[in-house]
């Protein structure tokens, strides 16, 4: 292929793909070409994680080292397989991936590894041994939250369990671990169980269905993968006082965190139910910073540093005792121990608040919200 053709191609590119590609193609020589293959982008967690990855790539420590391209595979594992293949073809040095399936990608990932591409999976796991994994211990998440609830109930009572997406290993591990804990307490009975799909909206419809034939008074506690914020709102609507809210083990949404603050706390922008209620909670989540951390580790791996194959993130657990409101949400502030954000800054109560990591001083609240790295 002649040089003339090459030039023509580049000109065409600049026109077709907006300026970004043309620029990056020119500079790509010195930069590491890294791809991000996301899953379904249509939910809050994924979008927040994507913002944090972009912020990480834009941080001054990485901006002139990394040429990051973000692609979406949708919910379709087949597509992600092809996407990863295409990324390898176009010369990726590393691929950061949110794996749609822990097993379906194994062959294509192996193929990528064989070509010297570093593959980093975040949040969920890829079982192929050559891949790097960055995630929390889901078994621990299920166990810790179930133990907290059992203790709150003094080992006795009726509970409702709202699980995640059936057929995924994350849901399987969390639910199994929690049920093992509950099995140790013969007086704890799971009286209702529904699939919550990790969505506040679904949790609400499922709880409404369960409560159609039951009463809040027959229930003593809630174990939910996502939905405590909603469950608290529903109890208030049903006429419960804030002091009567049931203990709830569940997700790390900012709405839930704000509800954990002691009732009467002055919080800018709060409006019931997105307001301090003094709810009894344990709040945990798969932290959305895992993708950003995976990107950082990927750069380290490309530069020849020794990166462990599996990075187990500390389980971000916040209880009613450790809850603390942030002022601005900078990394430094979170480092000092705050873990909930004002509704005036985060207007979506379903937004995931577990964004702090010791290992990622590059990103704070602004990163998760709009993709802006820290100074």
């Amino acid at each position, binding site marked *: 292929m002649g040089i003339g053709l090459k030039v023509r*191609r580049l000109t065409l*590119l600049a026109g*077709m793909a907006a300026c*970004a*590609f043309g620029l990056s193609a020119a500079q790509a020589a010195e930069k590491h070409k890294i791809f991000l293959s*996301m899953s379904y*982008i*249509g*939910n*809050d967690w*994924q*979008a*927040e994680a*994507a*913002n944090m990855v972009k912020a990480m790539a834009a941080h001054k420590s990485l901006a002139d080292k990394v040429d990051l*391209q*973000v*692609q*979406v*595979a949708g*919910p*379709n*594992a*087949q597509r992600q*397989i*092809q996407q990863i293949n295409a990324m390898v*073809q*176009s*010369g990726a040095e590393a691929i950061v991936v949110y794996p749609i*399936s*822990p*097993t*379906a990608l194994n*062959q294509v990932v192996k193929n990528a590894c064989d070509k010297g591409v570093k593959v980093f999976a975040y949040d969920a796991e890829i*079982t192929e041994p050559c891949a790097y994994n960055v995630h929390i211990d889901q078994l621990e998440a299920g166990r810790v939250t179930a133990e907290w609830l059992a203790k709150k109930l003094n080992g006795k009572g009726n509970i409702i369990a709202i*699980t995640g997406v059936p*057929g*995924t*290993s994350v849901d*399987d591990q969390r639910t199994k671990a929690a049920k093992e804990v509950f099995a140790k307490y013969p007086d704890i009975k799971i009286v*209702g169980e529904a699939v919550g799909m990790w*969505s*506040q*909206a679904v949790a609400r*419809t*499922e709880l*409404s269905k*369960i*409560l*159609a*034939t*039951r009463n809040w008074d027959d229930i003593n506690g809630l174990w939910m993968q996502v939905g405590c914020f909603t469950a608290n*709102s*529903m109890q208030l609507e049903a006429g419960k006082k804030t002091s009567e809210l049931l203990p709830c083990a569940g997700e790390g949404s900012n*709405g839930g965190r704000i509800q954990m603050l002691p009732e009467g706390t002055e919080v800018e922008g709060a*409006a019931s139910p*997105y307001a301090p209620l003094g709810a009894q909670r344990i709040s945990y989540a798969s932290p959305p910073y895992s993708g950003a951390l995976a990107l950082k580790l990927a750069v380290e791996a490309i530069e020849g540093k020794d990166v462990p194959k599996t990075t187990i993130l500390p389980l971000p657990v916040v209880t009613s005792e450790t809850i603390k409101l942030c002022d601005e949400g900078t990394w430094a502030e979170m480092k000092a121990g705050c873990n909930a954000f004002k509704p005036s800054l985060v*207007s*979506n109560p*379903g937004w995931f608040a577990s964004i702090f990591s010791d290992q990622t001083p590059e990103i704070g609240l602004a990163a998760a919200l709009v993709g802006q790295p820290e100074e």
Partner: protein
Amino acid sequence: MSSATLSSPVSGGVGLRRALVRNRGALIAAIVLAILLFIVDWVSAGPLTYFDVSFLSSGGATSALAAIGQTIVILSGGFDLSAGAVISLVNVVLASSMDPMAPGASIMLWTAVGIGVGMAVGAFNGFFIAVLRMQPIVVTLSTMFILQGVTLLVMDKPGGFVSPDLGTFYLGDAITGWLPMPLVVIGMVLLAWFWLKGTRFGTALYAVGSDADSAAAVGINVVLVRFAVYVIAGGCYGLAGVFISAQTGSGDPLVGNPLLLSMFAAVVVGGTRLGGGQGGPVGTVFGAYILMIVVNILLVLNVSAYYSTIAEGTILVLAALAGSISHASVLAVQLRAARARLAAWRAGILPSQLERVDRRLKIARPLQDQRSQASPRPAFHLRNAETLRYALPAYVCLIIIVVVTQIWLGRTILNPGYWNSLLVLSTFLAVLALGQGTVILTGGLDLSVPWTIGISGIVLAGMVNGSDVALVYALPTVLLIACAIGFANGFGIVYLGISPIVMTLATNGILQGCALLYSQGTPAGFSSPMLRWFMTARLGLVTPVVLLMVVFVVAAVLLLGRTPFGRRVYGIGNGLRAARLSGIGVERTLILVYMLSAVCAALVGIMLTGFSGQASLGMGDDYLLPSIAVVVVGGALITGGRGHYLGMLGGVLLLTALQMLLAGTTLPYATRAILYGLVVLGAVMALRERRLQ
């Protein structure tokens, strides 16, 4: 195409031209694919090598194989929603039964197992559809739920083992360096199809798809043909399942489900007409690869993640448009009509410009009176026998479900809270049922419901942000946006001649991109207190929204049953051509229908935002298939023309009551899915079509 060929005057001795016309859909799909391949080659760093071709061919093979099966079903006038679930089932069956310790695996044996599982499912579908004459869409939807449950029983999380031998065989080369195996597999399936097409069975298949009644009249065994179609299609999905197992080397109970919608897109892009009788699997294979190669194009062009669904939607529409370029295409016809109208207007001979005189025949009034005197108005149940026959089963099943709930869980029939929950939870689907139902009555389908709901909720929450006053301008804005969405859908379908499934699927993708861009990935804002009160508070025993629902139901019944608009909808559904000839403004009505559907979806988005207190991305995802299911369970005919809103409402109440029953139990999810599917299947048993004469 067959009708086009017959009606267009073909000058003598142009067999080639006729063949071209007949296969135009497939040809254009092939050309589009070639252009896309060329673009990939053009913009990517190096030239396309054999390796690229090999990996592209394996990437699209699963969907191509499954879509071939779907094409055959569609050619016979059917519809198969269980395809994705069959792929998952075959995948987990193989992954859980292969022994990792065994040295080698027999490729023939496991391929046969996969195809066998698929054919068994196909026989299940075929039995209910062909022998019991039930509507394909509900049968296969029920099968889908049942299979998803069975799949989770076989394997409740990803894992298992598929022998690498399978992968080496299916992903390898047939002729090293020249011919990748996936293409050979697809080629063999297509060859089998060509052989089949040449047999009497093949002719019968097209005949049944074009017009089942005529086919039966000329002595074709319609039942047998339909049954065989589902079995053959099941075999294709089974093979696709084997292929994806080979490709992934493991099992995942969710792997096949997302393939379903893109499969339909592949069929339509490949030139097969939904509704049957036209097209074929060759075009479908090109269609599947067109959809697959889009992934590569987005990658090489570095299209931002937020824009990717928009780009895909646009490509889908463009491909569909390219497939319909011809003198006889809807777009060309519309353009000619517009030109003719303009010319007529210039000449001053448009009907509206002429002096209008009432030229109706004068039918003597007394005649009507005499008749009504002679024979009294028949009783209600006789006048509405047809409606009752199709609408009642849902209500009968509803009563059964409620009684079962009372016996199993207690605190139901005399508990006002139960009825209130049932009605509140039904509201969403009841509103959607009017929109989707009206679209289905005209013979279409609206797949843009999920993200119309999503974008409405997100825009509303963002504008309202907890303030009641803001509702005053936020509500009209959201509804206006919905009107625009519906108009775009209708415009594409009516004036560009794009099939409803493709158009609304594309719109859905474009809306998803818009929602992401608007919200920057994190939807802001929350519902206002008044909206929340409306959806969750209690006025005595009922939630305020229940009162709205009553008004809505009355309005919906009147709209479809007592207005000219309603009559036009039924007219179009019963026969587009007849409707046009009897003076119905088909274009205007269809556009209004899609606008109605979008407005209903927007209402649901608003109500869901009030119900949950916030809006989230993907909040509408769980409403697409149920919105279609309730319409059909309520007795509507998926091909249009038949159905009553009260029947659909019965379907909504039935499915909601069933979900409430299942949620109250502590049965595992897999069992619930199976029960759900079985009950839906049982509920529609009574809706069987009458035996063909």
